[in-house]
């Protein structure tokens, strides 16, 4: 079993963005299904074949620019590997990250949901190995968010899971994915309905998203979601200077000539740019 410290280093070294799309408005009037907590068996089989499959999976995912097809291959390798054994926290978390990528970028809702559920099994298994492993906790919350987004019947429970996971990481001072806990929690607060239906709050979202920028000021995804918050703030508080600030932010960090993708993140950066353009179009 890998130690949390080692696995954190491994994950951070190849870290891609958190690919989060939380449309939590749908929690209103929705049924309450529980986010699945099923796990793999942690069987320990032939090490040689396992190591080869995992190495192949990692190598495939790390080859950039990524595409849904290439990442599907990485996911398939991990699935094969975990048929042999599933007792490495680091590998399970890495595989969950691959599934998280596909939860956003796989083609078709059914495929995205399937990868979301598979990713949840991996993080649940990882959390069985290390109860409060920060990366597993993080991806657990993110994948719960995707599940709530893809199937509104999980929405209420997904909100609880994201809140629990991200606040635990924030309280422990753990960072994953460039301010990820603040960014994910902030986006949840930004998009969820307000109490008593849910936990949404523009003011609290602002605090969290601004903190994500403090943790990782150069990460474009943080700027994308801070801009979304600033547009909402401008509208809610009737302060147009925040909208102007958001436009300048998007130009500087995502759309302008000086905006550059982080190393190996071309595919993801293009997706953020597309979201930035959509966000701008919504303001017109």
């Amino acid at each position: 079993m890998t130690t949390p410290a080692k696995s954190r280093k491994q994950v951070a070294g190849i870290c891609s963005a958190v690919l989060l799309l939380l449309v939590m408005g749908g929690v209103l009037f929705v049924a309450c299904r529980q986010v699945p907590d099923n796990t793999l068996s942690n069987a320990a089989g032939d090490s040689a074949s396992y190591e080869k499959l995992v190495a192949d999976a990692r190598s495939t995912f790390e080859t950039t620019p990524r595409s849904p097809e290439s990442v599907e291959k990485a996911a398939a390798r991990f699935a094969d590997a975990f048929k042999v054994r599933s007792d490495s926290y680091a590998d399970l978390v890495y595989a969950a990250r691959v599934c998280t990528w596909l939860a956003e970028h796989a083609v078709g809702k059914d495929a995205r949901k399937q990868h979301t559920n598979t990713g949840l099994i991996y993080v649940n298994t990882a959390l069985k190995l290390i109860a409060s492993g920060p990366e597993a906790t993080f991806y657990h919350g993110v994948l719960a968010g995707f599940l709530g987004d893809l199937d509104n019947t999980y929405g209420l429970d997904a909100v609880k899971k994201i809140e629990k996971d991200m606040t635990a990481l924030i309280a422990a001072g753990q960072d994953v994915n460039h301010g990820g806990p603040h960014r994910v929690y902030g986006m949840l607060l930004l998009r969820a309905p307000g109490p008593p239906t849910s936990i949404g709050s523009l003011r609290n979202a602002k605090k969290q998203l601004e903190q994500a920028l403090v943790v990782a000021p150069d990460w474009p995804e943080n700027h994308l979601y801070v801009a979304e918050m600033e547009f909402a703030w401008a509208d809610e508080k009737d302060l147009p200077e925040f909208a102007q600030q958001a436009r300048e932010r998007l130009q500087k960090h995502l759309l302008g000539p000086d905006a550059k993708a982080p190393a190996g993140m071309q595919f993801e950066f293009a997706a953020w740019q597309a979201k930035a353009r959509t966000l701008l179009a919504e303001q017109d």
Partner: protein
Amino acid sequence: MRMSVPLLLLLIVGVSLAQEKPTQPAKDVRVEYGLAVYKLGEKHATDKQAGEAIDSFCKWLGDQVPGATFARRGVRNQPADALKLLQDEKSTVALAIVSPSFYAAHKDTLKLKAIAEARRNDFDGEQFTLVGKTATDAYPSGKKVATSMTADLDWLNKVVMPAPEGIKPVEWVQYDNLFDAAYAIIDGEKGAPDMLLLDRVTLDSFTREAEFKALKHGLKSEMLPQDLLVELDGRLGDKSAAVVKAVGALDQTETGKKLGETLQTPRMPAPDTARLEKALKKFKP
């Protein structure tokens, strides 16, 4: 393959019945009734966000009422949009969940009959409370009060918090999120409201937020009706009684309980007519 005797009998009976069937399949003689929802002050009450859940409610209701099916006509959060929906003669609505303010405003023109009343979080009736930095037992003349219900100002001013004779009325300020309105007060934000008007469920959740401990509870409204299930123009016909019976016993089955959570009301018993009539008299003296 092992097969239980009852299952075997069922299959035999099934085959027998199938053989006796006429060549033409029997027509589904159930009548479809349109259902609409209007939630005041709920910006997420839209077909996109709530449609699926209302469809589940329609399906459940159809299972409870013999000879009937129910179909969603729409979910709205603005009174003008709801009125348009309920006036549509091409896609008629027979049954609707509406706010008491909507019922009061359109009872006569739309021929609405209240047949059940919501019990949000199992509270019997709705009561609004003013909350602010200082206790406000008196009517807060001229103050800015945050509410999610400015779409129905008449209801606010005539029924919920009527201004005493000769007193300057409050200035209602729309906040979709009343927690954010409270934070604006606590943070001393420029342009923040002076106080908040909170319903019972929101007030209940306020008590669990540590940052709100400094806010004090003041003047309360009278006990008022909650959202109403209404029949339009007698369109349910002889199905009305079955609908009333079904929604009154919503929490008696597991499926109904889940629907109750979805609809945020565990059941919908008969309306408190005395309370409703009293509110109506305030609205239209």
